């Protein structure tokens, strides 16, 4: 039944957010620490377990995939209810501070990406071009993951 999927999703969210609140309290922070992340991990494990046990018929799954599909429209509604006017009122300091932070963080993505990869992967024999080598390594790595394969296809 569709509601079973929705209820599983809702249960994960409630327990995850509660755990995030408790974690925040334990750390002495006035904020939820990773509640949504904990809920996502719970859904990955519970969903995977139920799928293995063949306890996830298509109708139950559709209760989760519906909300998955509603994600982008919800994000659009979220964008439309942001306090954009206040941000623009904040003026140059606010804009420059955030622009600098965002650009610096963007620049760090490839650095960190290389850092972890260099450690975790065994060195491979050199081929014609270093870029081709990297592409090749990625390709091989993503052969097992349909997600990134699809991501590349979209590009």
């Amino acid at each position: 039944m569709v509601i079973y999927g929705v209820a599983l999703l809702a249960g994960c969210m409630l327990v995850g957010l509660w755990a995030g609140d408790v974690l925040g309290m334990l750390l002495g922070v006035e904020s939820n620490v990773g509640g949504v992340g904990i809920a996502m991990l719970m859904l990955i494990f519970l969903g995977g377990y139920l799928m293995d046990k063949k306890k996830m018929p298509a109708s139950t799954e559709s209760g989760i995939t519906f909300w998955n599909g509603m994600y982008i429209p919800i994000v659009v509604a979220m964008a439309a209810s942001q306090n954009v006017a206040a941000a623009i009122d904040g003026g140059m300091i606010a804009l420059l501070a955030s622009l600098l932070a965002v650009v610096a963080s963007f620049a760090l993505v490839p650095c960190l990406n290389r850092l972890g990869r260099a450690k975790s992967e065994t060195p491979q024999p050199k081929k014609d071009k270093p870029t081709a080598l990297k592409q090749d390594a990625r390709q091989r790595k993503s052969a097992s993951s349909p997600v990134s394969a699809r991501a590349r296809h979209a590009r």
Partner: protein
Amino acid sequence: MIESFVTQLEKQHLIAAFALVGGAMYLSYLISDKLTHGRVHGSAIAIMVGLALAYFGGIHTGGSKGLADISLFAGLGLMGGGMLRDLAIIATAYGVRFQEIREAGISGIIALFLGVIVSFIAGVAVAYAFGYRDPVSLTTIGAGTVTYIVGPIAGASIGAPSDIIALSIAAGLFKSILVMILTPMAARHIGLDNPRSAMIFGGLMGTTSGVAAGLAATDPKLVPYGAMTATFYTGLGALLAPSVLYIAVRAVF
């Protein structure tokens, strides 16, 4: 006749929001297809349309919830609010393989710490350049650059004046808006095309709404990975900013 229709829209506000967003998405995808030949993703256009509408809503009503402050569009606030947003983000995790998350685990944690510290330093540096010298103001603006939730938390706990707190919130809002707009443009240049880099990206950026919308406009398949690490960012920022980072700022200035 028209009046009673408007009354219905106000009464069934959430349903009206579904219809409105559906229409806006249809137009955005049409624009993406016909005017840009698919080069700019439809959801990226839809998000920018949303932000533009939020701006006009904000200056029209003087409220804090963008277009949702106009009673006709109040449902947008519920639809795009924290509750349904978190439910939809969690739903994206269904079907993700834990293997992929574990592989990026350590890099994700490093990204979280580095992301908070880099954003904080950027905020402090710009505030310093604009003439702020006292550690409380510098820390609060730096914390706001982390996310707009961390700014007020840090500001309140170290006793910052309300105009500085407002400025820190503005910095955080700009950050999430910039991440929404710039992510799809930068994605190709920073290798943001696999779960691993999406997790690092989420940890570095941290703003859940920015990461969620930015990745949605880049590649919806990457959303769960980025969102997973990003949700730990605000908590970490709220932990570090009023304590370790404030002490560091006081030691330097």
